[in-house]
């Protein structure tokens, strides 16, 4: 049951079998950068439905890397979307307004921190972000240190789909430059994490000081296919 293994390389089929109805799935990436496009394709190819997807943004541009993920939404297979930035998806409004999709809007930093809280075993955190706005509705208000805060709860998931520039077979991974974004915090926040890498290298080849995601947060590693960027 431990997550330490020296060979986590998985096949497309093994990945597709992990997708199940009713799951909550974290999707890494910020716009096209750091987005696990191959895993989005596999998710789309799976039959999973009644899903909750969690992501920063999710473009429905047919020429973009996010397109297969946005198709999962268009096809009515997503029950709820938890998202920060919707403007890259022109279709969400009609799905939302026709009540085919529940949407929870989350400030970007609160989204990141809620995912981290799940990853790192916190019961929640206090923030002023969103206080006094529509997005505070239904949230518990906690008074501490003379100030009112929103209590934000951890956002845990069944699966995380994340992307790295390079990974070794233990699942250690480097996310170059601005590709880190949500990948590094989503990896530890799910029961099962699938990591896609542009390049897969032998264990020991990644300098420990450059590793962004350690293998203990990763269950499966796959090689990126050529996908839309």
């Amino acid at each position, binding site marked *: 049951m431990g997550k330490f293994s020296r060979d986590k390389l998985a096949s497309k089929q093994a990945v597709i079998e992990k997708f199940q109805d009713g799951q909550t799935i974290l999707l890494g990436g*910020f716009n096209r950068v750091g987005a696990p496009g191959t895993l989005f394709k596999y998710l789309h190819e799976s039959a999973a439905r009644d899903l909750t997807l969690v992501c920063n943004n999710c473009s429905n541009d047919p020429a973009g890397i996010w397109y297969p993920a946005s198709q999962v939404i268009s096809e009515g297979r997503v029950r709820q979307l938890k998202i920060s930035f*919707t403007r890259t998806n022109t279709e969400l409004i009609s799905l*939302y307004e026709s009540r085919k999709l529940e949407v929870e809007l*989350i*400030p970007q*930093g609160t989204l990141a921190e809620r995912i981290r809280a799940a990853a790192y075993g916190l019961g929640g955190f206090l923030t002023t*972000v969103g206080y006094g706005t529509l997005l505070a509705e239904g949230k518990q208000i906690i008074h501490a240190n003379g100030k009112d805060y929103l209590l934000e709860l951890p956002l845990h998931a069944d699966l995380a789909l994340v992307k790295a520039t390079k990974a070794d077979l233990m699942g250690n991974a480097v996310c170059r430059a*601005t*590709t880190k*974004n949500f990948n590094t915090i989503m990896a530890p926040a799910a029961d099962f994490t699938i990591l896609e890498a542009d390049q897969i290298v032998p264990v020991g080849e990644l300098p420990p000081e450059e590793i962004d995601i350690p293998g203990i947060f990763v269950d499966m590693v796959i090689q990126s296919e050529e996908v839309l960027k």
Partner: protein
Amino acid sequence: MSDVRHFIARNVASLLRNGDVINLGVGIPTLTTQYLPDDVEVLIQAENGVIGCGPEAVGEQIDRDIIDAGAKCITVIPGGWFFDSAVSFGIIRGAHLDATILGALQVDEKGNLANWYVPGKLLPGPGGAMDLVAGARQVIVAMEHVTKYGEPKILSECTLPLTAIGVVTTIVTDAAILKRAELGLELVAIAPGETIESVRAKTGCPLHLPKEGQVGEMLQ
């Protein structure tokens, strides 16, 4: 129109100090850096995970792993740094930014800001706006003084859904620079061609005059 945007950006730039660490929203704010005085250098953070943003990358500079929050391929200055979204919003929430500069739909005299949602329009996501205005030391709103229908955007009380309560410190428009003071909004400077009365006429709340000194003139 473009002139107005540049005029606003030039006046926002005049508020920045050497060594400031800032975040720039889309639109007018991104024009700001081209108007910085020679002796003012600032460090730019982008909330997708980079500090030390340089100009847009061209030709061989382009590295598709290096973008800003607007998804533009950028360069990064020597001494720059990359980080994940949890750290990025830690920097933002933790008051490590001297200023965030962003546009607005409405601002009111209590410093309330509305810039994310017009009911009935496209379903919006707040992105990083709510985090940025809650965390930065200064929140500088850069916008036109009135709507395209000539209605005031600076009000006694915002009518649109709020982004945050009591956060705006400065407003820079095509007509004036306003600072939030104890009593409400204070008229710091007016644009060439405007008078105190003409600015007041297009503003939906009382404007106070500085307690000391006088109303200045905005940079042309």
